[in-house]
């Protein structure tokens, strides 16, 4: 290698002098960052590393001199903002450390900022963790020369039911407006007015002072009727450098210095976002976003941030419950409840008329809990009937998970998703089902092409500038196949996916589409695109890794392989594992509802997500053991209920969709036990050593499970709907549905302010379909094969695939599975109505 080549390979740098110290940084580095790199902190408010520079607060003024064309240093006439200027070659910067001018300028700006800032630190939520307060104390002046009356506003302005704005505290740094514009794409707050009256506000006719123009369309989707409709609005509170933005739930409830922050992992979606749970004397007061550049950066969804009160509601179970002689649940001691559960399960497993026991851990379990559930099923109950997927899930998905996902370690990552030139989304709605996945995709907007296989471009996809590949629900497989074959007008999807680094994202809804996973795998193999499976619930990937699926053992090997069973049995120290093929969750529940099971062991299962016929299976099970945090539809039918800990009160590991282990410890020290500990005690009561008393024990055992790629189940191979079926569907009205991020989920209970930021549930149809079906009136009545009907306001959506109606899955007034008993891709009948 020649010297010249070496020179060409070193990355270019610029060298400058800050406060007399020579600093070398990559070109494009802001002065404020370059100063940070040598340990000089320049005060700032508006600057945020993840937002575009704005130079709005002017606090970071420094003195700058730059070499002119003749090489002579030419000082700028006035101090410049270091947060918005890039360091250039030969620049000489003098910060407040060495420059009197910069120091005086910063002092002056601080005095100006404080002129209209109220002295209400004792009642302000930010007091104690406030950058303005801190810098006023360290570098501000003790006295103010301003004796006039301070500017006041009516306070607080409710931007949404959750977000409140105190404008008089605002220093107009525009972090919130820039976040809404650049990061979340919901620019519903903006700077208004001029001069001394400058203020941040929503697009509210009253504030804007131009009546006659109120936003319609997108903003009107907010249930509260206020226009700041964003799933990520809580982040603006956290990045606000003063206490101008507050949340209704936390406002005035505590002071920051009184709170203990415990780092943890969010359990509301499969992203595994880093969070900090802030609590005081055993009570969680708020949740803040953690900083994990590899996963969620510094952002979390509002659901992760605000939906925590559910675990401390009044219906929390603190002691075991057993069903007494009178048929009512009563409190019992642990030994009594364990004995009752052990007797009942023993009878159900090996009694005279035993038909077997099924295990449904639910999709929110930790890796350790999922492992304990499946080991309990296979070792204690002697069955493969264990399935953590409490949703439509077939053998095809299981084959996909076994062959492509389980035990594959870190696959596609957030960084890969951001760097991908092309991303195709199938059965996956990033904003509603992905949380911070959406923010990563949006970060790549402009350099990335997003294709979405959906019936219409949702608001989230519109913010990603996604290209719609019009797809009838239930025929996603056919759409993928047609792309693989290169037919139709969608050739650029194929070309795009063939690019280096392209990613094909499949969501949980594809499990309900026959032939969907087969087609996705075939397309990925053909184009070379990488596959990423992004489920909705936090525990699903962990359950796959732990083998809490009927056909999968821990480590991803097939339960049908004798060699795999032997390997796992050796680690577990048992003579053998059950042979009979297991059943998926829906089949287990179906069997139970027809009286085909003797018992059920159920974890955190939500019945509202299930069709009524299957939910009845819970009631019909002769013996039901429930491990729950709160009283629920399941515990109402249970014979024995064991209280278990929510994720804030236990240690464990979530595995996020990337396959990244996200371990967390208990934020609150309570006496509540983890599922794996309860199952361990129950197994001991039944005379079996499960070996899952602690997280450490499970981790150690999981590490010894052999992983052998040759023992994986075969890849999925299922055919999609036949041509005749497809033709029949083309004539009928097909249902498209998914869960909105903020809906009626049981983990969002007890937070009315968050519920108010949900989007108004509407039924969507294309104009052509509305015309073709002759629908009149503002309300659409949708009915399925059963008797239930869902009536929602009709939103005529241009560009939507014809013959499709969209409903939110589990929103107020629209519980699709429970009311209609149908799922994504099923046919429904619709009719219009006036009310």
């Amino acid at each position, binding site marked *: 290698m020649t010297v010249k080549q070496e020179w060409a390979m070193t990355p270019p740098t610029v060298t400058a002098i800050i406060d007399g110290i020579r600093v070398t940084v990559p070109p494009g580095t802001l002065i404020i960052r370059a100063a940070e790199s040598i340990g000089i902190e320049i005060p700032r408010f508006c600057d945020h590393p993840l937002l575009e520079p704005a130079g709005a607060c002017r606090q970071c003024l420094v003195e700058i001199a730059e070499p002119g064309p003749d090489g002579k240093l030419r000082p700028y006439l006035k101090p410049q903002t270091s947060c918005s200027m890039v360091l250039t070659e030969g620049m000489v910067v003098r910060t407040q450390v060495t420059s009197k001018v910069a120091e005086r300028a910063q002092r002056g700006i601080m005095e100006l900022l404080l002129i209209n800032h109220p002295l209400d630190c*004792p*009642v302000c939520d930010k*007091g104690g963790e406030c950058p303005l307060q801190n810098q006023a104390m360290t570098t501000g002046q003790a006295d103010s020369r301003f004796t006039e009356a301070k500017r006041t506003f009516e306070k607080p302005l409710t931007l949404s039911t959750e977000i409140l704005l105190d404008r008089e505290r605002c220093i107009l740094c525009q972090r919130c407006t820039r976040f809404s514009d650049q990061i979340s794409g919901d620019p519903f707050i903006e700077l208004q007015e001029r001069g001394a009256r400058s203020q941040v506000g929503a697009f509210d006719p009253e504030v804007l002072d131009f009546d006659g123009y109120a936003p319609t369309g997108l903003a009107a989707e907010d249930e509260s009727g206020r226009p700041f409709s964003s799933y990520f609005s809580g982040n603006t509170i956290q990045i606000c450098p003063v206490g101008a933005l507050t949340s209704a739930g936390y*406002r*005035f*409830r*505590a*002071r920051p210095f*009184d709170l203990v922050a415990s780092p943890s992992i969010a359990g509301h979606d499969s992203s595994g976002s880093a969070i900090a749970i802030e609590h005081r004397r055993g009570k969680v007061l708020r949740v803040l976003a953690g900083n994990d550049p590899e996963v969620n950066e510094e952002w979390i969804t509002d659901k992760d941030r605000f939906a925590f009160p559910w675990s401390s509601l009044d219906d929390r179970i603190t002691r075991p419950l057993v069903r007494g002689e009178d048929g009512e649940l009563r409190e019992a001691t642990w030994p009594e409840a364990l004995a009752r559960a052990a007797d009942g399960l023993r009878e159900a497993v090996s009694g005279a008329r035993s038909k077997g026991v099924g295990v449904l851990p639910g999709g929110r379990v930790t890796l350790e809990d999922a492992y304990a559930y499946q080991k309990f099923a296979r070792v204690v109950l002697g069955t493969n009937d264990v399935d953590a997927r409490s949703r439509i899930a077939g053998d095809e998905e299981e084959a996909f998970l076994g062959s492509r996902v389980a035990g594959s370690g870190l696959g596609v990552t957030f960084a890969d998703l951001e760097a991908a030139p092309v991303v195709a989304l199938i059965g996956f709605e990033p904003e509603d089902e992905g949380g911070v996945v959406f923010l990563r995709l949006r970060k790549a907007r402009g350099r990335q092409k997003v294709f979405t296989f959906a019936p219409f471009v949702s608001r989230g996809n519109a913010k990603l500038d996604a290209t719609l590949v019009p797809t009838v629900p239930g025929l996603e497989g056919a759409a993928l196949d047609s792309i693989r074959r290169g037919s139709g007008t969608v050739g650029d999807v194929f070309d795009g996916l063939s690019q280096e680094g392209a990613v094909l994202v499949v969501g949980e809804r594809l499990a309900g589409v026959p032939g969907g996973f087969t087609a996705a795998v075939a397309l990925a193999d053909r184009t070379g695109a990488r596959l990423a499976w992004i489920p909705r619930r936090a525990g699903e990937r962990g359950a796959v890794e732990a083998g809490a699926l009927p056909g999968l053992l821990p480590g991803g090997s097939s339960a049908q392989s004798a060699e795999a069973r032997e390997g796992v049995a050796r680690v577990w120290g048992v003579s053998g594992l059950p042979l009979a093929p297991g059943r998926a969750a829906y089949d287990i529940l179906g069997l139970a509802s027809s009286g085909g099971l003797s018992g059920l062991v159920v974890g955190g299962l939500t019945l509202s997500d299930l069709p009524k016929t299957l939910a009845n299976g819970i009631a019909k099970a002769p013996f039901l053991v429930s491990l729950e945090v709160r009283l629920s539809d399941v515990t109402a039918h249970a014979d024995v209920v064991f209280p278990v800990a929510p994720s804030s009160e236990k240690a464990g590991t979530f595995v996020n969709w990337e396959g990244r282990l996200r371990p967390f410890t208990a934020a609150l020290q309570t006496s509540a036990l983890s599922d794996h500990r309860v199952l361990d005690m129950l197994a001991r009561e039944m005379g079996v050593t499960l070996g899952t008393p602690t997280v450490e024990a499970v981790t150690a055992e999981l590490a010894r499970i052999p992983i052998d790629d040759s023992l994986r189940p075969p890849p999925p191979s299922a055919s999609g709907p036949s041509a005749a079926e497809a033709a029949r569907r083309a004539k009928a009205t097909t249902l498209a549905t998914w869960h909105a991020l903020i809906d009626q989920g049981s983990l969002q209970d007890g937070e009315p302010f968050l519920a108010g930021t949900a989007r108004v549930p509407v039924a969507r149809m294309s104009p052509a379909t509305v015309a073709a079906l002759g629908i009149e009136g503002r309300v659409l009545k949708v009915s399925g094969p059963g008797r239930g009907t869902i009536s929602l306001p009709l939103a005529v959506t241009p560009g939507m695939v014809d013959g499709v109606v969209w409903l939110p899955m589990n929103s107020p007034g629209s519980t699709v599975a429970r009311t209609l008993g149908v799922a994504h891709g099923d046919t429904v009948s619709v009719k219009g109505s006036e009310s």
Partner: protein
Amino acid sequence: MTRADVPFVSNLPRKGAAGRFFAPVAGFGVTMRNIFRRPKTEQYPRQKLPTEPRYHGRHQLNRHPDGLEKCIGCELCAWACPADAIYVEADSNTPEAQYSPGERYGSVYQINYLRCIFCGLCIEACPTRALTMTNDYELQGPTREGLIYEKQDLLAPLAPGMLLAPHPMVPGTTDADYYRGDVTQAVRKQIDWVRENRPDDPSLPEVHHG
């Protein structure tokens, strides 16, 4: 020369001959001097001597002249407390339940007198002079719970012109007017509000007929 070689010399003045003669019984001098004096014994609890005026006794949560509470629930007292004896929870004032001027009030206020060391740092920290100390020192009890004083145990008694909170602020005033001392007593509208919402309130002034 080592230390041990220095001879001992007492610093006490040497006594004369008489002094040396009475030395063995000199100790009784103190007894003799005091035997005819009146006893100084305080006859507590029959006779309670007043403390110094700035004695640090039990706390008191003060009220504004119209009866609204001065405490805004800012928790600065809890923060200042070196013994972690104070626990405060704040909440938002609402039009239906206005406890203090402004937006925020202390909904839970507890002082654990089995932790409190009566140092007075909480008093210094209080930005609204809501928390002060009285001269009352008679505290003791058989249980730990009994010595955690709640807000109702600490609130100052109502002075004339005061109305029991919650009730609205004096119409047309802001919290700043309260802090400036412009509010001097409960006004007609506040009394009417309380009469309408809590007719049986003991702090209501008696209605004069005729």
